[in-house]
Each structure stands twice: as structure tokens, then as C-alpha cells.
């Protein structure tokens, strides 16, 4: 399957400036996305997922700096002028937000939202054509045409999210970032939204980066999954494979912490999420890793491909020749105390 990737991210770094020092929200991330493929991006709150999603699209607030490479269909997005990025947004790249309740302008009708989006990219478009295309997209989302001219507050949360998705997709972008699209919605609506997203993949070959902290969604909707921790992707590969045989200890702990009907006792990962201003030395997960070795706090792990084809960054997978002798012994547990203070 050697189709050209739609998006190619290499060593992307997004750092924010704060009084305490730069926050390394995204600290060297790489991945590829092919058309029609959905990549799930999972991790704890504050690990940099949302920043990554926005960073790829160039939608970051002032006070942040980006470097690395994001290649979109042969164009380099990092360093592109805002005007050029803007012309790509909506048309080629889309973003679906988390909280649908506040993402629509309360003083504007839904029809006006669509008109604005379409006119921004196709200035010559007629009113009639706007209506035709918008109503069509809305209908695919399950929103009836009779409600086309209503105001946002007249819709429920689930419907608003569907409208948001419709807005993001009305111009058929090739690549969509969905940032926790169902977190704010109840489970039934969540299922509907997910099925809509599946349809998109089928019908329009949209490449999607699905950001979530819910492993269940990933298992259901994604072909591949990337696990993020402290600004880096620690494991990435085929979703079914990663979930059945997790290569990285963090992934394994995450899976163990999920609750299902067979759960009898709560499992959790000790310690707190790492400080992104001064991340732990070496492998960033070492303070909380049950399998940490002595080499882990000293050297940052090198990315390795497992036998089954995943990418993983963990000294447990070698490469053995880079580990100084004797440092494969388990790490002393006193390190956990400092993790608790983090």
C-alpha cells in the first residue's frame, strides 16, 4: 500500500512561552497520514494532543514557536504565511472542535455560518448554490432542511456538533483534525457521530487525525493509533496490534486502566502527568514506569520498529548496542517520590 500520504509530519515542535520557561507541548513528533485513513491520537490530559492537532493546522496563539516539518500534499506548512494557511483551511484542512455549545456565533443563523465559510473560499458563489450545498451536507449529518435558518441556541449539543462537522466538511477537505469531538456529548450521540465520521472516510476518502483520551473510540473508529506522552509519540502503529500487544509500558498501563464489565479493581498509573517546562530526563515516562531500567533516566530512548511494524520509543526494545553495559538492571524505586511531587 504505497499511496502518497496526505500529511507528513516530521519532528514537529511547538513550544509556548510562559514565565516559568517554555512549555514543550509538542517536542519532536512525526507521523504520516494517508487518504481515507484515521489515526487516533491518545494520551492523558495535558500531554500535548490538542496542541499537536492545532499545530499541524497552524492555528496556534501568539507566544508559541513552531519548527519541524509538516508537508501537506507537497506544500510545507511550517513557516507558511498566515494568508496562505487561511486559504487552505476549510478547503483542504478542517478542524472539528470539542465543545459544540460555544463554537457557533449565537447571533448568526446556521445558514449564515455556511454562507460565510463558502464565500470565504469561493467568492463568486451564488446564494442558491450555497443553500444547495449546505443543505446537502447538513442532510448527510441528519439535520433536516427545515432547520437551516434556525439559530444555534435552538439545537441540542449533539445536533450542534453535527452542524460543526458539516461546516468543517462542506468544502470536502482532504485532511481533518477532530479534537475530542465526542467528549462533551453523551454516549448515544457519541455513537451517531462516530458513525458519521466513518461515512466520511468511506465516501470522501478524508484523512483524519482523531484526538481523544477514550481508548474505546480509538478501537472502534481508527485504523492506526499513536500514543502520546509528555509531548512525544511513544508508540504508533496498527490499532488492533497496539491494543492486543502494546509495546510501550505506558500504552500497556493505559489499557489496563480502562474500565470494562470485567473490571474488579481499579488500576491506575501512579504519579502525576509530567511538567512540560522541565520534563523528566531521559525517557520522560521513567518516573512512573513499572519496567524502568537504569538507563532510562540517563538517555532518551531511540525510535525503534518492532517485529510487527509499530514504531516505539522505549529502551525495552533496544537497540541493545546503545545501552551502556549494566544499565538494564531495574531502576531504584526512590525515583517515584520525585514523580509524586511533579
Amino acid at each position, binding site marked *: 500500500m504505497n499511496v502518497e500520504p496526505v500529511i507528513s509530519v516530521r519532528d514537529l515542535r511547538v513550544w509556548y512561552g510562559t514565565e516559568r520557561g517554555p512549555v514543550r507541548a509538542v517536542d519532536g513528533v512525526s507521523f504520516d497520514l494517508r487518504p481515507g485513513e484515521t489515526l487516533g491520537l491518545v494520551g492523558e490530559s495535558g500531554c500535548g494532543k490538542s496542541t499537536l492537532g492545532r499545530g499541524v493546522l497552524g492555528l496556534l496563539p501568539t507566544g508559541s514557536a513552531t519548527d519541524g516539518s509538516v508537508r501537506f500534499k507537497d506544500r510545507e506548512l511550517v513557516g507558511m504565511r498566515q494568508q496562505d494557511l487561511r486559504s487552505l*483551511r476549510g478547503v483542504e484542512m478542517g478542524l472539528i472542535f470539542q465543545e459544540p455549545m460555544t463554537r457557533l456565533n*449565537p447571533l448568526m443563523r446556521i445558514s449564515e455560518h455556511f454562507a460565510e465559510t463558502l464565500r470565504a473560499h469561493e467568492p463568486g458563489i451564488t446564494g442558491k448554490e450555497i443553500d444547495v450545498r449546505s443543505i446537502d451536507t447538513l442532510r448527510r449529518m441528519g439535520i433536516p432542511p427545515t432547520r437551516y435558518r434556525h439559530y444555534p*441556541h435552538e439545537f441540542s449539543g449533539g445536533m450542534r456538533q453535527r452542524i460543526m462537522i458539516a461546516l468543517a466538511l462542506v468544502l470536502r477537505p482532504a485532511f481533518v483534525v477532530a479534537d475530542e469531538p465526542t467528549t462533551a456529548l453523551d454516549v448515544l450521540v457519541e455513537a451517531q457521530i462516530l458513525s458519521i465520521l466513518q461515512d466520511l472516510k468511506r465516501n470522501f476518502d478524508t484523512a483524519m487525525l482523531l484526538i481523544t483520551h477514550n481508548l474505546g473510540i480509538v478501537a472502534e473508529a481508527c485504523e492506526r493509533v499513536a500514543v502520546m506522552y509528555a509531548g512525544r509519540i511513544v508508540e504508533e502503529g496498527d490499532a488492533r496490534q497496539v491494543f492486543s500487544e502494546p509495546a510501550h509500558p505506558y500504552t500497556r498501563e493505559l489499557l489496563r486502566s480502562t474500565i470494562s464489565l470485567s473490571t474488579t479493581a481499579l488500576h491506575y498509573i501512579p504519579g502525576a502527568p509530567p511538567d512540560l517546562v522541565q520534563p523528566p530526563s531521559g525517557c520522560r515516562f521513567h518516573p512512573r514506569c513499572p519496567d524502568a531500567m537504569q538507563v532510562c533516566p540517563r538517555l532518551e530512548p531511540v525510535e525503534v520498529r518492532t517485529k510487527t511494524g509499530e514504531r516505539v520509543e522505549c529502551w525495552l526494545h533496544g537497540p541493545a548496542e546503545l545501552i551502556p553495559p549494566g544499565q538494564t538492571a531495574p531502576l531504584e524505586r526512590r525515583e517515584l517520590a520525585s514523580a509524586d511531587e511533579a
Partner: protein
Amino acid sequence: MATSTGSLRRYALTRLALVIPMVLILLTLVFVLMRVAPGDPIQAALGGKLSPEQLAEKRHAAGFDKPMIVQYGEYLRQVVTLNFGHAITDNQPITTILKINGAATLELSVAALFVALVIGVPVGLWAGRLRDGVFDGFGRLFGIITYAAPVFFVGLLFQLVFSKWLDVLPNSGQLSALNNALLAKHTHLTLVDAIWDGNGAAFTDALKHLIMPAFTLGLLLCGVVIRLIRTNIIQTLKGDYVEAARARGVREGKVVWRHAFRNALVPVVTVMGLQVALLLSGAVLTEETFNWPGIGNRLVYYLTNRDYAAVQGIITVFALAVVVISLVIDFVNAAIDPRVRY
């Protein structure tokens, strides 16, 4: 999913009902304030000018020797029938005073509001948009200084520059004596009357007299408007729907105008309504400075002469005006913002 017109009507009725206790309290307040002074109104106004028998006669005629409760009832009846009797000192019917001088104050207020909005809204919008830039700094400073400079001081400066030094505008009054005598008073709003009669000379004269007072009072309100709009813009620009629009590739200019500006203006209407108290207070001072024949002017005159009957009538109208205007503002707000309906 309420329909627009139905709930607007219901909103109107509910608001009206809520306003009645407020009005009652205001009226009671006015009544109590007027009676707190030692002695009675007749004594205060005319004591020393007439003999005791004449005073007693007048007192009886005006009903000031009846018990307080009865007087209170009388007062309320007066308010409802809008008949406030006569001023004690010069025996003018108070309703006439309110009509004639009220029109002058109305003219001044409307002109001042116009000036305030025309200057204040653009400055506030741009100061908020270009936050922390040079323009923002000047805009804010301008807003602060126009508020800090007392109305009468600004008026004095205007008079100094335009009347004394440059001699292009008349110092005070509403019309020159000649035009005043010639103009037929239909509405007592000089500009309107001049247009009604097709009297060009009177119109220019009235306008010349109106400019300085209007700008003086207008600049005062301007300060408030600027600060208000600036804060609103800053808040709206941070709004979620603004970010969502940017993510769809809408041009920055359009985002600012369509989403930020329009939404920021909505609460302005309400707050300007609340500034009526400020407006009226400022009007009193402006009228004193320019000898503008408005109610504020009359109020000061009657107060200085201890004419409580007149003062009571005038203050009552002031208080009611504030309430009525707040109501109107609320209705306008409900009409603009579809979310604000009961």
C-alpha cells in the same frame, strides 16, 4: 424551540410587571426626600416674602397641611395623572415647565448621544482590535481623559476657544433672541421646529448653539462608550466561535467584523441604557455651563430657591425617565439577541 414574536411579547409583559415595584420605591424615595427638610415647602420657598396668614392660605391651597399619608396619596395620584401642580415661587404649571424645558434637554441629550456613539464606537472597536498597540494606548487614554475632565470644565474650555478666541460659536443659550422670537414652537425641539417651518436661518442658528453643549456632554459619554466597547471586543475576540471561524479559513477582517464587532456591540445597548443616570447628571451640569434652557437648568434654579413643589415634580420625571428608558433598552436588547427571552 420558542418562536420569536410570541416570546418577545411575553418578555415585554413580564418586564413591565417587574418594573412596578421599582417605580413605587423610587417615588416613595422622592417623596420622603422632599419632606425630610424641616418645615414645609411653602415656608421654605416663600417664607419671609409673605405674611404668615398668606403663607397659611397658600399652604392650605396646596394641601401641605394635610397629614403625610394623605399627601403621599395625593402625590401618587399626581404622578399617575401626570399633573404636578404649580411651582410655588413663580406659579408656573409644572407640566408646562417639563414640556418646554424637557424638550430642550431631550434635544441636547440626543445630540450628545449621537456624538458619543459616532466618536466612541469606532475608537473603542479599533482600540480593542489592536490591543496593546499604540492606537489602543491612545484610545484608552482618550477614553479616560474625556471621562476624567468634568463636563463643566470641558464646556468652559470649549467656550474659551470657540467663543472667546476664535469667535465662531455663540457662548450660550439655545437660540439667539431674535430667532427665538420668530420661530414657531411646535415641538419645542428647535432643530425640528426649524425644519418644520423651513426656516433656514433659525436652523443654522440652532445648530451653532447646539454644537458646543452637544460635544461637551458627548465627550463625557464617549469615555464610557470607549472603555465598554474595548473590553467587549477583547472578550469576544477570545470567543470560541471566533476561533472556529478562523479554523474554517474565514478572512481575519471578516472574522473581526462579523463575529467580534457585532457581538461586542450587543451588550453596549444595555449598558448605554444604564448610563441614562450619567447622561442626566451630565446634562444638568452642561445646561448650567451653557445656560441651556433645559430641565437641569430649571432644577438648579428651583433648588436654589427652595421651591420644593417644582423640584419634586422635576425629580419624579427624571426618575421615571430612567426607568422607562431602561425598559426600552431591555426590549431592544431582547429583539436583537434571540437568546434573551423569558
